[in-house]
């Protein structure tokens, strides 16, 4: 794999890194309060002219939420929690899932079917529903459970939801590699199982795991967004009254949570819901670009019909054009003589 093929990945990663750094820096340089605006706007006569949520303006590019809090500040602050949760969960899934998958497939392949039977509900029941069933008894509004304990539990549940996918992908992949002739030869020559894993399976598995990691990032984000619609925000909800009407708010201001808590503003203040959703959409697009380029590079061919690359038909035509050159034709007489 050549490094110059990862241009889009580098750019996308760079943008994501800028987001993350700005979110981390917010804690040190950002304003302490998201609310710099007064609750109500008055005219010269002291008459109330507007109440929050305020629409986007020069001072507030993404407007404010129902409590008069700056949406942009909320998003910047919440980004790091989204990134942290998604990266930690995806990393855990890929590392533990692939490690266990390799161990089970190499040393105890008979147990694979037991794992399959054990995780069968994950195969048929929507993951979102399983997530809701597991989280709901813990992440409700009025309980004494500390936030950090709730977050740890949520991360474990999120890990569990994606673990079977990685595990079974690894077992199937290792099984496929094991059936190759060079691995069989290695066995016959006395290679240990550990040697075969390290030298013959891991080099093939590593690139696949990178793609799997990116896919898990997307899936975790999706599930986080779905759970937020059930008020299962990362760290749980709080109902502290800030301006007027109390409503369920995300404690961490994590992006999916912000989207979930502001769903009901769609009718009267769509900018509130769409600001965090728009940010999530940007992250989705960037991660998708990374995934597509990784897949294209790992498969050893250019991305087909992608928005950013040449299309398959064009490439085929080019190949055909290149192949039909005068030098490739032999004169008939010469051909006959050759025969």
């Amino acid at each position: 794999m050549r490094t110059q093929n990862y241009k889009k990945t580098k750019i996308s990663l760079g943008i994501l890194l800028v987001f993350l750094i700005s979110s981390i820096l917010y804690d040190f340089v950002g304003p302490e309060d998201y609310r710099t605006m007064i609750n109500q706007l008055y005219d010269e006569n002291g008459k109330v002219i507007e109440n929050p949520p305020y629409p986007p303006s020069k001072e507030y590019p993404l407007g404010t939420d129902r409590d008069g809090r700056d949406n942009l500040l909320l998003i910047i602050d919440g980004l790091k929690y989204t990134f942290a949760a998604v990266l930690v969960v995806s990393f855990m899934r890929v590392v533990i899932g692939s490690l266990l998958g390799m161990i089970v497939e190499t040393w105890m392949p008979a147990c694979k079917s037991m794992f399959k039977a054990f995780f069968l509900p994950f195969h048929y029941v929507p993951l979102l529903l399983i997530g809701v069933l597991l989280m709901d008894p813990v992440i409700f509004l009025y309980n004494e459970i500390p936030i950090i304990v709730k977050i740890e539990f949520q991360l474990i549940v999120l890990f569990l939801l994606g673990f079977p996918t990685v595990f079974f992908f690894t077992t199937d992949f290792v099984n496929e590699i094991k059936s190759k002739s060079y691995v069989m030869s290695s066995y016959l020559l006395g290679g240990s199982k550990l040697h075969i894993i390290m030298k013959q399976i891991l080099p093939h598995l590593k690139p696949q795991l990178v793609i799997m990691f990116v896919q898990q990032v997307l899936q975790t984000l999706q599930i986080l967004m779905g759970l937020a619609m059930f008020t299962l925000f990362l760290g749980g909800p709080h109902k502290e009254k800030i301006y007027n009407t109390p409503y369920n708010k995300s404690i961490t201001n994590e992006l999916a949570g912000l989207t979930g808590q502001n769903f009901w503003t769609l009718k009267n203040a769509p900018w509130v819901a769409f600001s965090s959703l728009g940010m999530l959409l940007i992250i989705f697009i960037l991660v998708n670009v990374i995934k597509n380029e990784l897949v294209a590079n790992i498969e050893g061919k250019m991305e087909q019909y992608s928005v950013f690359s040449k299309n398959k038909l064009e490439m085929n035509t080019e190949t055909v054009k290149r192949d039909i050159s005068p030098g490739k034709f032999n004169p008939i007489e010469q051909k006959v003589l050759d025969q």
Partner: protein
Amino acid sequence: MKINSRTFLKIIKKTAYYLVMTGTFILGIAFFLSFIYLFDFNKKKGEHLGFSFDGFYKQLKYVLNQFMDFTPKSFIEYASNPTVLDGFLHSHTILGISLAIIITVGSILSIITMLSPVNLRRKLHQFLDFFEGLPDLVFIFAINMLNIILLKEYNFKIFPMYGLGSTQPIAFPVIVISFLPAILFGLFLLKSMEDEEQEHYIQFGFAKGLRKSYVYLIHLTGNILPVFIIKFRIILYMLLSNLVLVEHMYYYETAHTNLIMMQMFRGEHVLPLIYSIVMFVLPVILLEYLVKFIVKVTVIRKRGALPL
């Protein structure tokens, strides 16, 4: 008929295998239903999540004991309850209509794209590609917003969205949950068709002067079915997941998701919760296997294509 010892041993082994698998499956369900008891949440500020193996073991035993109460009669009784039946019918009506729309729209999209001139086909493919990997929620919000704009600006209400009171909308959830899956279905179909298009028999068909539409619809479509079934499963479960989300978001009271949530809050017995989940996913599982079976009988056995 005399059974020799080897056959007998084989039967014993097979029976034991299936018994172990069934046991593991039941243990798996019990494990997930007792999962939260594995943790100790009784912590003070600053402390971390702990484990509670005793509590987990007790709950696991309790859940397994409750499994013993299972009888087919209890399931039938639960399923024939009018509230449950209403929820089931409402949710699965939405699911059925959505599936029909997805298959129709997706097939039309892919066939139109395939039969278009090369440049247009490339543009259409690029357009469809853009939707791959995007979250469903974006489209749910966007369609919801469109409905609100039409109502606010033009006083034009296409369909009711929320299931408040006695309203039980069908059109809105159908559109919302089938929008993205229909595009993805079309895209999957298109990709499968393009892969198959490179095969020699297709090129040979063109060379013999057969019409493009004839080659695609008669020869190509039949041959991509076995590969396509694998993708179809993804669409089915995506639809189910979207339905859970939409039924909860828009407060559909007579819906199956609501029923599952109710059983979860009650928490008196695990069986009603399991019954409601089974009722929710069973038609989809049956449909998946039915499609697989039909393709196996009509395509794979006939043409010897790859096994599923």
